[in-house]
């Protein structure tokens, strides 16, 4: 690749990513603040990764996804996970029709472009597994037939960090399948004032369709073309290795706080998310800023904490910050 190529790629990405501004604008009409959430949704959408959202109730998690599906003109479904939910409620089942005297397929809510799995940790492991399998395979088997899920397929699962009683926490192996874990915080004072005003107006704004699912699929192909230099790859590997063997990066102080580090899936996710972030920023190449911007969301749920860390009240967030501050930037 030479100078002309990168210019051409930059230009192409500038054209292809034009919808990002439109999408942001449409979402901004409905969602006030939560820029990070919106960016994360776009990253997930463009890189084909699923997102685990963690935040207290009422932070517009569902609204954000609904708005995104409206703006993309995609099919959206919401599943409230409860302890008595069954896998069939999720993926669908075969129903016997007395009229035709045969089994007909009743597809479940998972057959949608955007699936909101609300409070995923409220359901037992078998339901979680059914969803996570669908996420991984992007297909569902009902009876003897396998049905592909619609494209794009994006699962956004939510977890409530406050109530842990009567929940079924996701095992580490399953959490690893989410590309990003986004922690949503409260809006700022000004944003909260705007939210009140918006809700008092009586008419709630609604996002209009600005892009089709096919455009998203095309954009994904362009995202894959975003240039990632070998230096950036090395930087990503350094970050992931620092989570595994911190002592090799002069991080002996956090060695005892990490029980396990990021998997190769973490490296892949970090690279993909960095490319998507560069695309959102309308750049044809990845820079260290992109990696750092997504590192927390990619690694947050992939670093295991020891009892010592929990006793010290140290979160994976703190460890990632420490790692990012120590690993040399190319």
């Amino acid at each position: 690749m030479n100078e002309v190529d990168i210019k051409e790629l930059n230009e192409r990405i500038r054209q292809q990513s034009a919808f990002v501004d439109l999408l942001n604008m449409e979402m901004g009409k409905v969602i006030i603040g939560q820029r990070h959430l919106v960016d994360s949704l776009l990253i997930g959408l463009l890189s084909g990764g699923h997102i685990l959202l963690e935040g207290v109730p009422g932070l517009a998690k569902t609204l954000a996804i609904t708005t995104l599906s409206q703006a993309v003109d995609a099919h959206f479904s919401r599943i409230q996970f409860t302890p008595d939910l069954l896998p069939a409620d999720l993926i669908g089942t075969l129903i016997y029709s007395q009229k035709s005297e045969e089994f007909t397929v009743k597809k479940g809510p998972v057959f949608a472009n955007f699936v909101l799995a609300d409070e995923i940790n409220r359901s037992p492991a078998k339901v979680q597994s059914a969803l996570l399998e669908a996420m991984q395979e992007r297909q569902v088997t009902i009876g003897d037939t396998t049905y592909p899920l619609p494209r794009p397929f994006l699962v956004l699962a939510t977890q409530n960090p406050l109530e842990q009683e009567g929940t079924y926490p996701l095992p580490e192996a399953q959490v690893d399948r989410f590309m990003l874990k986004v922690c949503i915080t409260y809006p700022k004072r000004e944003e909260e004032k705007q939210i009140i005003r918006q809700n008092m107006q009586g008419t709630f704004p609604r996002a209009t369709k600005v892009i089709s699912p096919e455009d998203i699929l095309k954009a994904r192909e362009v995202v894959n073309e975003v240039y990632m230099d070998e230096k950036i790859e090395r930087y990503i590997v350094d970050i992931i290795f620092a989570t595994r063997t911190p002592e090799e990066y002069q991080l002996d102080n956090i060695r005892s706080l990490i029980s396990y580090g990021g998997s190769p899936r973490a490296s892949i996710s970090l690279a993909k998310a960095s490319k998507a972030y560069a695309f959102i920023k309308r750049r044809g190449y990845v820079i260290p800023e992109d990696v750092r911007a997504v590192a927390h969301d990619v690694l947050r749920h992939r670093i295991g904490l020891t009892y010592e860390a929990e006793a010290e009240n140290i979160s994976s967030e703190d460890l990632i910050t420490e790692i990012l501050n120590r690993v040399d930037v190319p």
Partner: protein
Amino acid sequence: MFLHRYLYRYMKRTRYSIVFAALVGLMFVGRLFSQVPQSGLPEVSARITPDTILIGDRFRLTIEVSKDLAQVVDFPNFGEAGATSRDTFEVVSVSGIDTLSRSGRQHTISLTYEMTCFEAGSYNLGRFPVLYLDKNVMDTLYSKEPLSLVVRTFEIDTTKQQIVDIKKPIHTPLQFREIRNYLLWGLLALALIGLGIWLFIKMKRRESIFAPRPEEPPHVTAIRALEDMHEQKLWQNGKHKQYYTLLTDIIRTYLEGRYGISAGEMTSDEIRSALRSAGLETLEYDRMDRLFSTADLVKFAKFIPDADENERLYSDSYYFVEDTKLLPTEQVPPAKEESELPTEKGEEDNR
């Protein structure tokens, strides 16, 4: 029997054990007929000098054989030199076979054993055997006369002896080599103790063990590194990526030293915002902004700037360091009371 044992050992050594029994028989026959002179056979003679010795003294046993050139003889083996051949006798050394005289085909050879004895007494050593080989004949020949040895001991008249005390050690003058090792080890121990005390004191005072080198100002390091880099002619050789990596690394190190910004672990954006917080002038900020923007493109987007741009960014970096360097007067802590401020005269003195 003494001789029989020698012979047996001799036979064993020469590996003629197969005919051992025959030899023993021959030996007895030889003894019976040894007094009878036999024409054509070698003549064996033996002598001991002296035949009377003081206990522990040495004596020499010499065995001589007169024989024809074609005849083969083998002298007895009393064991290795230094080994005790008998309970009472010890072989000190054995000489090589010596030729004493030669007349036509007849010649006389001898072998001398130097021996000693540590038991007083009178010993009858008997006659000494020599093994004789000639074609199909194998025989043992003996010396003509039996030999004897008297070993005397000291005669002590206990009635005339006085009991004396044990002699005291002899005092010889002290020599340096005797105390040299003690002296060296002592000095080494003293040096180690001294070093230990010094280290302990240093650690207690929290002082650095080695005197720290005066720290080089960051701008000096940066300027030197920039000049070194410029001499490498990296971009001229197509190594643009290397050129910009080195250039930004030098500036990052300088920023760390000059502004205390951990620029090494910061992204370009983070460095920009840190510089903004550091209150940099617009000109300097713009220089850095241009440098990091272009460097990012070169490093991560395979962008190849033109020669002017490369040189301009080098100059920007150079003058950025020059213009923002800390002058010595700026390093003086400013917070001083007015009364503590040096007077004009004092300043002059200081200068």
